[in-house]
């Protein structure tokens, strides 16, 4: 409760939350407001927004209703962002936790792998993964997760390195708690807040990565993602700029929302800067 108050005292964070709620509302009402397949042919392609009362955001280059795609796309973008983030965080936390907790050879080994992933430009790895495993949504989401975990691992490891020597962990050890219980029961809950805050960064980047893939025509065409709409709209960028601008704006707002919420969480969790 106190936390929520601290959070809401920050107007930017509160705005982010409202924005995020709006995006969630889009996703939730998509099926209600646009029951038809958003990828179906709705009308003549490239109708301008507000020119046809049936399509208040116009139609795209393949005659789909842009509004429907924005609403349904909110689902897709959130799912991409969320699932990819969960994957990245899971991998990152696991690797970071083991490396930070055990140290020594295990740490060396895991950090080498992490280093390998960090040295390799992540977008390049994403391209390779998509080229190898194809462009369906599952692959893309997993691939984005797989290229995004190293910072989470480093962050978790750093937290573990400081926390594992904290007295409450040592106390747990003197009480005879096992490693698993110390890692997941004692240290992890305390290491998570900065990682959760960082998750907002991963989520924002995940949404942007998907749109970059769509730009290179490597995203899944069977889902109404905003990235696909931008990627497609790119061909008509000069005249019908709205086709890519509308989803571009949607991405911007979503990433903005996620970032603001992340920053708000960070400020609320970091008492030193609470009053700033």
């Amino acid at each position, binding site marked *: 409760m106190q936390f929520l108050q601290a959070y809401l005292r920050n107007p930017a964070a509160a705005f982010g939350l409202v924005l995020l709620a709006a995006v969630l509302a889009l996703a939730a009402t998509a099926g209600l407001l646009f029951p038809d*397949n958003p*990828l*179906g*042919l709705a009308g*003549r*392609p*490239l109708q301008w927004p507000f020119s046809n009362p049936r399509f208040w955001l116009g139609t795209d*280059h*393949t*005659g789909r209703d842009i509004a429907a795609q924005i609403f349904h796309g909110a689902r897709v973008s959130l799912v991409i962002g969320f699932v990819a983030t969960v994957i990245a965080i899971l991998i990152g936390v696991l690797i970071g936790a083991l490396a930070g907790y055990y140290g020594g050879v295990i740490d060396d080994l895991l950090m080498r792998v992490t280093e390998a992933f960090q040295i390799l430009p992540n977008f390049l790895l994403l391209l390779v993964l*998509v*080229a190898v495993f*194809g*462009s*369906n949504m599952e692959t893309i989401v997993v691939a984005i997760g797989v290229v995004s975990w190293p910072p989470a691992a480093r962050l978790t490891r750093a937290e573990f390195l400081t926390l594992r020597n904290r007295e409450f962990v040592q106390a747990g050890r003197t009480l005879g708690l096992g490693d698993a219980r110390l890692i997941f029961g004692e240290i992890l809950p305390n290491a998570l807040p900065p990682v959760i805050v960082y998750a907002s960064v991963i989520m924002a980047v995940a949404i942007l990565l998907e749109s970059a893939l769509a730009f290179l*025509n*490597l*995203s*899944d*065409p*069977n889902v109404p993602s905003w990235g696909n709409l931008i990627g*497609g709209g*790119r*061909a*008509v*960028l*000069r*005249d*019908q700029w709205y086709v890519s601008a509308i989803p571009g704006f949607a991405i911007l707002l979503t990433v903005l929302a996620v970032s603001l919420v992340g920053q708000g969480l960070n400020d609320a969790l970091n008492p030193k800067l609470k009053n700033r």
Partner: protein
Amino acid sequence: MKLTRRELLLSSGALATSALFPPLAWAHAAAGQPRKGGVLNVHVASEQRILNPSLRASTGVYIVTSKIIESLVDLDDAGRVVPQLATAWESSKDGKTITFKLREGVKWHDGKPFTSADVQYNALELWKKHLNFSTALQLNLQAVDTPDAHTAVFRYSRPIPLDLLLRALADLGYVVPRHVFEGTNVLENPANNAPIGTGPYRFVQYERGQYIIVERNPDYWRKGEPHLDRIVWRFITDKTAATAALESGQVQLSAYSQLALSDIDRLGKNPDFVVTPKGSEANQFNNTLEFNFRRKEIADVRVRRALAHAINVPFFIENFLYGQGRPATGLIPSVSKSFYPADSKVPYAYDKARAEALLDEAGYKRNARGERFALKLVPINNGEDVPLFATFIQQSLAQIGIKVEITNFDYAASLAAVYKTHDFDIATGWHQYRGDPAVSTTVWLRSGSPAGAPWTNQYGWQSDKVDKLIDDAASEVDPAKRRALYAELVREVNEQFPIWFATERDFYSVVSKKVQNSHNVARWPSSSWHDTWLSA
């Protein structure tokens, strides 16, 4: 000279008549006096691995190399074969021996003379062994005799129609210097990336990923030509960026529909540019729908026809392609005057009710959710319109209860999926027609092609009748009979329907109005541009 003009006329038919006229007579007709000098900047979307048209047959190679390296023959504005390095030709009665007279006084860019030995080497070592499409064309080539330095006699084990060979040689008859290639590993010869030829322009510089520069060849055999100082090709991958380069004056020409459809449409209204399909008539393409007969629903011809009936091609062309195209009537496009069957019509025109009826009849009724079955569609992304057509297919088939899942791969992977592992139910891409069905098209239908060869018959379908028609037409020397055989082939393929040629499409060029003498021959982007000039 052994051949008389009369014999030549008889032997090579109407197509060769233009050889009698001065080839340049019409070239200067339109514009004023050519201006010397200037640099022509040309947009190219993707880079080729090697710049050798006698190893790689591809418009991407021709658009650059045809200015440096010349082929034996070229096409005129009406698509008729005209002399280039070959000045005259003759076929023997049995169609097994073709004699070429070669142009005299032509020099390679390195100063050595061009002779029949060069042609002999190219034909036997490159065209027959390495050059894609040509290996099939020259399959029966046994020998090339060189009775003198300017005569080359091609000897075939089976008759080869002269008009087929000549039409093909415009693309598949580029000659590179024998003295540079002989005795080397031809695939790794440095001249593949720094080409040497006889053409109007000499190679200067190739910056990978950036540009290629050529400059005027002062020793060119057409005296007084070429007019331009230089030609620069710029590699611009992104279509939108390429349009911007055109509009900001960084490049003056983009050929072969390498810009976005919407930009082509829009630039058509721009007074500074000409947007035209003219000059690219020799290359046409279709949006195709390929069927995989390994899938039981697809193997039923009623289903295949139903799919075609369900797709409103005129709507697609009008609304998705900015009207750039026509519904196709079969594998030979209507611009191919020599082969297009007279009474052609669209085989399975848009008729949703008919589509539904056919599917019901085939036993694939809608289930409770209104669905009949699902198909996996692999788009082969040759161009921007392929994903559009894939989407349109998805949208259209959804309306007759067929759920289409589009499987998006990158280019190499989609080809492998369709033609190597047959991991598709339906596929869509481009078919390119190059003037003669035997050059470009029959390979799509002839059985016997091993898995892994793209754009061949990998549908799990085979027809003895079609195979026979293809083989007969390939060695039929009588043009009229050939034309009849191909008409029969079109009818038969439309009947059996292993592949649907849905649209027929022109390649568009966007060119600045400053560029003169452009698009004045049927394959202008792939021609030598010897007479092209820039107005001030």
